[in-house]
């Protein structure tokens, strides 16, 4: 078969404008040779595209979806591992950053404790909230002033705490025996305490 002319290739590629197309089709109707050349080119393309009808092992297509689903499962598992492998260094970095940049605990907090106690007692009506805050205050105070887990009666509290003794006992003692309540507080109460502590720390 001789080389296909660019004119025919242009026609087959639909690259001709309307005028060129009309001229080509006029030429085509007048030339048997051009008709044969075009028919041969079209036949060649048809032969190429006929591979779409190639007979294949149909079992392949029957198994395709189950195999793809297995791949999906593998990807899912790999995705979890991948996420975990990403989470570990992130967590490690977060811990390092926390230890490097976390605010250092205030050493002398007696004034803050005092302010906190007063603030809580004067402004918070919820006895649970008061109790939990005082729980922390009491424990920290006892560590600072009385040394560890000593009995309440032997604990020295910061000076100038304006809380009557019976009130202090009734609140702090409850907190002392129920230390875990801070962890069990509802979010709202906990946030309230957190807010108050933050404000006091800023003073």
């Amino acid at each position, binding site marked *: *078969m*001789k*080389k*296909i002319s*660019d004119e025919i*290739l*242009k026609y*087959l*590629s*639909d*690259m001709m404008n309307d005028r060129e197309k009309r001229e080509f089709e006029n030429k085509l109707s007048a030339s048997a040779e051009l008709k044969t050349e075009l028919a041969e*080119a079209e036949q*060649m*393309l048809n032969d*190429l*595209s*006929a*591979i*779409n009808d*190639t*007979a*294949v*092992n149909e079992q*392949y*297509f029957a198994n*395709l*979806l189950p*195999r*793809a689903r297995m*791949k*999906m499962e593998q*990807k899912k598992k790999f995705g979890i591992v991948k996420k975990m492998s990403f989470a570990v260094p992130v967590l490690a970095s977060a811990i390092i950053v926390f230890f490097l940049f976390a605010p250092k605990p205030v050493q002398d907090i007696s004034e803050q404790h005092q302010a906190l106690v007063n603030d809580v007692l004067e402004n918070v009506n919820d006895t649970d909230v008061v109790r939990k805050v005082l729980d922390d205050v009491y424990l920290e105070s006892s560590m600072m002033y009385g040394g560890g887990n000593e009995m309440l009666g032997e604990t020295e509290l910061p000076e100038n705490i304006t809380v009557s003794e019976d009130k202090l006992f009734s609140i702090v003692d409850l907190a002392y025996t129920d230390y875990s309540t801070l962890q069990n507080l509802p979010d709202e109460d906990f946030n309230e305490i957190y807010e108050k502590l933050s404000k006091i720390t800023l003073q």
Partner: protein
Amino acid sequence: MNNTNDFELIERFVAGDEKAFNIIVKKYQKKIYWHARQMLGEHLDADEVTQEVLVVMYQKLKTFNFQSALYTWIYKIVTTRSLNQIKRRQLRKIFSFEHTDEKELAVENDIVEDIANKEKLEKVNRSLEKLPAKQRQIFVMRNFDQLSYEEISEITGKSVGGLKANYFHALRKVTEYVNEKD
């Protein structure tokens, strides 16, 4: 290709009907495979791409926006994956990761069993190998997938004029090769 039916199937799948996905796959799996096969020229790569496309379809079908036909959306995935596979193969060649065994393996596992058909496919592949990847992509879509320039334009994001020019050059190379061999 019936869009309404496809859209219904997608809606059913998104609502949790796994069977709808199976129907979609059954409808399009051969088109996906043959597009990949004609782009890549052999079975193993085509199989890898076909499976990848099914996985992507399963994961992304929930984000289908119903603005285009489903087959256009699928062709976008399969043609992009095929081009990526060609790039990967080129890289493997550059770094000599590709073993001669792989070609033998591809022939052994081929789903085309008839020898005459295998030879025909091999001939087509040899003529397509002469084309740069993008020209091959357009030639495959136009000649084998029977897509219009407008459809190819929607899939590839290229202008119809540019596609026509690319197809013209691809056609010239392929016909020249076939003529030489004949």
